[in-house]
């Protein structure tokens, strides 16, 4: 694995996983300051990808790969092009500051090391997702992001709300992931192509398939759940239960963009069809409007930002869904702008929460004097979010307006949705960035003051990056926007990005309308919020509640189904098990006409007859035994007789094992019987006696017939010959049975001992299960003992 050039992509993706292993120890050693050295890891990754930018901007792409499961054509491979490089830069760049921020935010937290570890795991998963070339590689990293996000949202696992949010996110995004897997497998099955690079080079390879609509829907299922599109948007605001560094990283800048990434990535092969340009703008548009309207209702800074994230994702999906070149240019610019300003604003919200003790916007005000640096960063980021010059957010808005207006002029609905959405976005930006800082000073739960450098480094850097990207618009266009747009459109495209609009056109006018509308709405924010709250109260139901209903329904369904199938009566289970066994033995024998032919009386020696007689007498003893214990022991007689037969016919290993198994099963059965508190004698009424006797006979006859039939068939000696020949030469052992167990078929044995161990665990658990009241008594007794012991100690 080389550390320079495209091959080092492997090292870059694996580095965060290594950092995740180190993070807890580093934190134990250095405390919160561990964030400084740890942040070097994402910084190095950022520099590595930044080093690739000139080549990628020149149109180059790399696909380093190693074989993974060659038998199924699965490789561990990455695809580095404009789109994935931009995402990798965002993940590692923002990640650097998030690690620093997490160092300051969770300073002194007992599990800070674990938290940083989770963050690194996520970072690695996310890098793998955006760089993944092989579809299976991509999918595995996709699922890893869901799992690490589950760990991060549920980090504060003692709170029920966190646990619920974590589970909800996992169910929604994980469920979508399964759809995506189905989609990928269909792509592989239909085209035979297993990697993204080949697929993208294939042109219409997917669009000409009859099953294209199904593939598209499955992929959209994955993308929409991950990117929180309506009606799956509800998990994202709930995920705000996570500590703020998580919200800033996963739920604004990176993970939620995975869906958008996938849509952009697959646009050249899936996009630009009637289905695509219908579904995506509709869902994206609804998400944009719903997101901004729900954001207005909130008073919690993080929730306001979360809903605008939903809205922004909707906007991106809508723009990608139009498949218009210009709109996609706008989408790419907006993607960059959004990652920068939203990451910064989340960190600002977290800093306010951290330093002032609340993030309720109605209880905040006048913090500008106490937190000047944070205020400055908030203003810069909010200006970008509002789409005002001279920030990259402004350029993005110009381009996207230009794109949707200029496309064919008639798409008024999309334009109107975008204008309303952006105006509301401006309202929220102002509310988040201005409300807490301006106005008279409001008493906050904590005495507010500026946070440490770990806390403001991120917001300042990201908001300044938003400014720099706009000021150096030409370079941004050449190095970042053009390569990405080329990737998304599938053809080399040059986007000339400039800060000052070239002409006074529709875009500028739409921008002015947006700003004016935004300012009017901001002044009426309180009225708007009250109206929204009333409206939502009137509706009363949302997908969030629906999720709970679905989960509750699932639990109660599986509960009643389990009660139906497992009534809890051992005799019913036993009867059913043996009945099914008898049928499985007898029915195929009869249907296929495979009953054994009459066997002539075997020619046995007198001692062999003797052993048979012992076995039969053991069985008779079982049947006539007066008590259960006698029956169990008598069963052992028959077992030992069989063991002797094995011995006589030259199978000492088998015989040995049979002896031990027989002994142990008698011991264990006897022990079980003593615990079950059964009556020593077994009296059954006539009817069950006949029924159960018939079933038992059926199993016995069936098994005997099957064995006899098997021995009638010609014996294939090839395996025996193989083992006899090679057991000494290859495996250095004379005992063929043992050599087979531990060497030739060692992997089977490995599985078997795992089963033995699991069975042991299950039995142990079953032995310890006691009726509820008995458990409580034991608990009370233990508690009493403890109290006694304590009082005794006190006396001493």
């Amino acid at each position: 694995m080389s550390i320079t050039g495209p091959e080092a992509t492997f090292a870059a993706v694996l580095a965060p996983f290594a950092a995740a292993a180190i993070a807890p120890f580093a934190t134990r050693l250095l405390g919160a300051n561990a964030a400084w050295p740890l942040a070097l890891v994402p910084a190095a990754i950022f520099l590595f990808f930044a080093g690739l930018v000139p080549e990628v901007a020149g149109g180059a792409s790399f696909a380093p790969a190693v074989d993974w499961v060659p038998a199924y054509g699965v490789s561990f491979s990455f695809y580095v092009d404009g789109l994935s490089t931009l995402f990798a830069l965002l993940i590692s760049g923002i990640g650097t500051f998030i690690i620093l921020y997490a160092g300051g935010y969770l300073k002194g937290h007992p599990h800070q090391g674990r938290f940083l570890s989770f963050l690194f795991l996520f970072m690695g998963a996310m890098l793998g997702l955006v760089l993944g070339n092989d579809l299976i590689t991509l999918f595995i990293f996709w699922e890893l992001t869901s799992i690490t996000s589950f760990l991060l949202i549920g980090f504060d696992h003692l709170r029920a709300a966190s646990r619920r949010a974590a589970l909800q996110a996992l169910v929604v995004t994980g469920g979508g992931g399964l759809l995506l897997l189905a989609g990928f497998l269909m792509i592989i099955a239909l085209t035979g192509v297993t990697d993204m690079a080949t697929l993208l080079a294939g042109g219409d390879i997917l669009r000409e398939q009859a099953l294209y609509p199904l593939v598209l829907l499955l992929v959209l299922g994955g993308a929409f759940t991950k990117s929180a599109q309506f009606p799956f948007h509800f998990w994202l605001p709930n995920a705000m239960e996570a500590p703020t560094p998580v919200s800033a990283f996963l739920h604004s800048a990176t993970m939620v963009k995975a869906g958008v990434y996938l849509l952009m990535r697959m646009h050249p092969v899936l996009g630009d069809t009637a289905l695509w340009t219908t579904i995506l703008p509709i869902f994206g548009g609804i998400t944009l409007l719903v997101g901004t309207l729900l954001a207005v209702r909130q008073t919690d800074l993080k929730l306001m930002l979360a809903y605008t994230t939903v809205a922004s994702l909707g906007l991106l999906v809508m723009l990608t869904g139009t498949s218009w070149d210009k709109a996609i240019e706008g989408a790419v610019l907006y993607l960059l702008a959004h990652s920068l300003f939203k990451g910064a604003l989340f960190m600002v919200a977290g800093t306010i929460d951290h330093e002032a003790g609340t993030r309720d916007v109605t209880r905040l005000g006048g913090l500008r004097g106490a937190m000047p640096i944070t205020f400055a960063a908030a203003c810069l980021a909010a200006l970008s979010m509002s789409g005002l010059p001279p920030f990259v957010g402004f350029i993005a808005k110009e381009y996207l307006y230009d794109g949707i207006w200029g496309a064919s002029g008639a798409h008024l609905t999309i334009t109107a949705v975008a204008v309303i959405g952006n105006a509301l976005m401006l309202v929220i930006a102002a509310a988040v960035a201005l409300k807490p800082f301006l106005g008279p000073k409001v008493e906050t739960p904590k005495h507010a003051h500026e946070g440490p450098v770990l806390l403001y480094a991120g917001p300042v850097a990201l908001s300044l990056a938003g400014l720099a990207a706009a000021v150096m618009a030409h370079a941004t266009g050449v190095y970042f926007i053009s390569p990405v747009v080329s990737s998304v459109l599938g053809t080399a495209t040059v986007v000339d990005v400039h800060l000052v609009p070239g002409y006074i056109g529709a875009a500028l006018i739409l921008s002015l309308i947006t700003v004016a509308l935004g300012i009017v709405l901001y002044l009426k924010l309180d009225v708007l919020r009250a109206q929204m709250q009333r409206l939502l109260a009137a509706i009363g139901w949302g997908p969030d509640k629906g999720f709970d209903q679905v989960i509750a329904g699932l639990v109660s369904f599986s509960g009643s189904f389990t009660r139906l199938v497992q009534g809890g009566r051992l005799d019913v289970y036993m009867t059913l098990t043996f009945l099914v066994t008898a049928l499985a033995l007898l029915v195929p024998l009869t249907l296929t006409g495979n009953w054994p032919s009459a066997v002539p009386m075997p020619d046995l020696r007198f001692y062999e007859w003797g052993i048979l007689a012992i076995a039969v007498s053991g069985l008779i003893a079982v049947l006539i035994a007066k008590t259960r214990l006698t029956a169990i022991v008598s069963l052992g007689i028959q077992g030992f007789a069989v063991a002797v037969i094995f011995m006589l016919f030259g199978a000492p290993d088998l015989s040995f094992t049979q002896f031990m198994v027989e002994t142990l099963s008698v011991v264990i059965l006897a022990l079980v019987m003593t615990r079950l508190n059964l009556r020593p004698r077994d009296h059954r009424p006539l009817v069950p006696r006949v029924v159960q006797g018939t079933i038992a006979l059926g199993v016995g006859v069936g098994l005997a017939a099957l064995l006899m039939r098997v021995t009638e068939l010609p014996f294939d000696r090839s395996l025996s010959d193989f083992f006899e020949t090679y057991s000494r030469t290859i495996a250095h052992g004379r005992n063929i049975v043992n050599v087979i167990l531990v060497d030739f078929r060692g992997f089977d044995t490995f599985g078997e001992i795992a089963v033995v161990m699991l069975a042991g665990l299950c039995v142990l658990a079953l032995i310890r299960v006691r009726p509820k009241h008995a458990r409580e008594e034991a608990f009370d007794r233990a508690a009493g003992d403890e109290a006694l012991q304590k009082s005794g100690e006190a006396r001493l």
Partner: protein
Amino acid sequence: MRTVIFRTIAPYLAALMVLFSIFVLLRGHNEPGGGFIGGLIAASAFAIYGIGCGVAAVRRAITFHPMSIAAAGLFLGGVSGLPSLFTGQPFMTSQWWYVHMLGVEVPLSTPLFFDIGVYLVVVGAITSIALGLEERESD
């Protein structure tokens, strides 16, 4: 069950059986025996000891929880498959070393360690079941 004779003889019997089980385990590659059967013998030894002298005595004697012994065995079984990976062969390809100890050539191999793993799993799992059942007031 707990007659004086049985109680007196059980520890010696159990000790002999454990010794025998190890003998059976080690000779398994060439003569009848092996980890599975050895494990069964050792498990019966502990069961007898438990019936004779009580479960607490067995638990003291084996130090670890029987389930931990089984887990260690499974782990050993898995790890014993790894050395072949370093020589570029598939997982679980057997590796042999001939070590000279005290003037005797002792063949060591990964299947031997695998077999010891099997032994431990069987001892651990069955002993934990047997002890669990023997303990009346377990919790």
